[in-house]
């Protein structure tokens, strides 16, 4: 037991690296928030564009969504970070992480919103149009709110999964939780920083999961 504590909870290592890990937590947190907002926002816009039903909008959106969902995000991250500089375009680690994860989340969100929109009966659209609402007004006030509600459970899960992927930033020098704590582990020769990483992730995601449950309950309604 003593040995266990020494490996995973060495107090002096804990104290030494606590500020670094706390700082990294902030990085993970704001990266996660920005990615969720941008990814879901972009997904929503893409799903709306798709309702216009012109092939030159639909085709690129479908290709984007399928490619982004098919590729492992790490592959994209490496290509962006190590490949693009060869074309004279150098992006910082956090920016690459933001772009790639936002795109991936947007792809999933678009599909989720689109599934919700197509699940709506034609009657909902017709009720809107028959009362003089424009296509856009019907989309905004009638169709989207229902599609969003239908999509919330999958959306929440997807958003959490994507936020956890910020850990991939550790391979391109983003100072998020995993990067900071694994370099601390290497430096100190103690596993304690990894324990700290786990605690930090729990501190962020446990409340998030509880919030997700609440959201799901709040927005599910009997049909």
């Amino acid at each position, binding site marked *: 037991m003593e040995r266990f504590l020494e490996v995973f909870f060495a107090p002096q290592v804990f104290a030494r690296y606590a500020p670094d890990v706390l700082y990294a937590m902030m990085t993970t947190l704001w990266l996660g928030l920005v990615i969720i907002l941008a990814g879901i926002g972009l997904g929503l816009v893409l799903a709306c564009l798709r309702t216009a039903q012109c092939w030159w909008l639909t085709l690129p959106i479908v290709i984007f969504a399928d490619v982004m969902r098919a590729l492992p995000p790490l592959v994209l991250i490496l290509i962006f970070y190590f490949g693009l500089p060869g074309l004279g375009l150098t992006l910082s680690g956090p920016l690459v992480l933001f772009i790639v994860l936002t795109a991936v989340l947007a792809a999933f969100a678009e599909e989720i919103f689109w599934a919700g929109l197509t699940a709506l*009966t034609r*009657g*909902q659209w*017709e*009720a*809107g*149009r*028959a*009362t*003089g*609402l*424009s296509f856009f*007004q019907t989309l905004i*006030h*009638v169709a989207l*709110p*229902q599609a969003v*509600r239908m999509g919330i459970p999958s959306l929440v899960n997807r958003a959490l999964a994507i936020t956890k992927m910020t850990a991939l930033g550790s391979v391109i020098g983003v100072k998020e939780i995993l990067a900071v704590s694994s370099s601390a582990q290497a430096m100190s020769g103690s596993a304690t920083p990894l324990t700290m990483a786990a605690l930090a992730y729990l501190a962020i995601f446990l409340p998030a999961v509880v919030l997700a449950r609440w959201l799901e309950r709040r927005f599910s*309604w*009997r*049909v």
Partner: protein
Amino acid sequence: MTPMLEIAGLEKNFGDVQVLRSIDLKVARGELVFVIGPSGSGKSTMLRCCNRLEEPTSGSIFIDGRNIMNALSADLNRLRLQTGMVFQGFHLYPHMTVLKNVMLAQTKALKRPKAEAETRAMDMLGRVGLAHKAKAMPTELSGGQQQRVAIARALALDPKVMLFDEPTSALDPELVGSVLKVMKDLNAEGMTMVVVSHEMGFAREAADRVVFMDGGVVVEQGTPDQVFGNPQQDRTRAFLSRVTGAE
């Protein structure tokens, strides 16, 4: 006087299939026209052409003397305010309260101020006997109540014509009466109405004219007594004996 609704030479094709062949129909102000006909005869399609929910292949639709076939899309949204439509499946918005259902198009399409829209919505809900359900969600209402809310939603926009497509077909028998009563009252107050329905009893009581459609044409029309009591066409007789025989 110009008819409130006039359908002239209306044709509609779905692909190669001709569903409506040259329909002509005039509906006078305050008149209740009752449309019957076998399944697939084009009743719904005709009704849906009257607000261009379905785009006619050719022909004209005049609402209060104005040909809505000439309207461009922005104009069309405004013209659709003149026709209220009630669907078989109600189609209330499930994510909004009853009150919001009745207010939405008032504020967004008619651009009424919120307070005025709310007053109007409460008036209309009162008229269909559901003012006490204003704060309820649609799913908490019975089918008959939902359909009355749908009628209130259409009425709140002050339409010139109300179009009903089998408004009671999805209802349990004991709920049909409440909806028919609202419709009867509405007509008694002078609303022009076109009603597609199988409620023959209602037609005898309330209709000014009965129109029998088959195969995309108007086969026969007249007063309820004429059409039900003394049909002139074989097809009408065959249809009536089938539906009354089934009852």
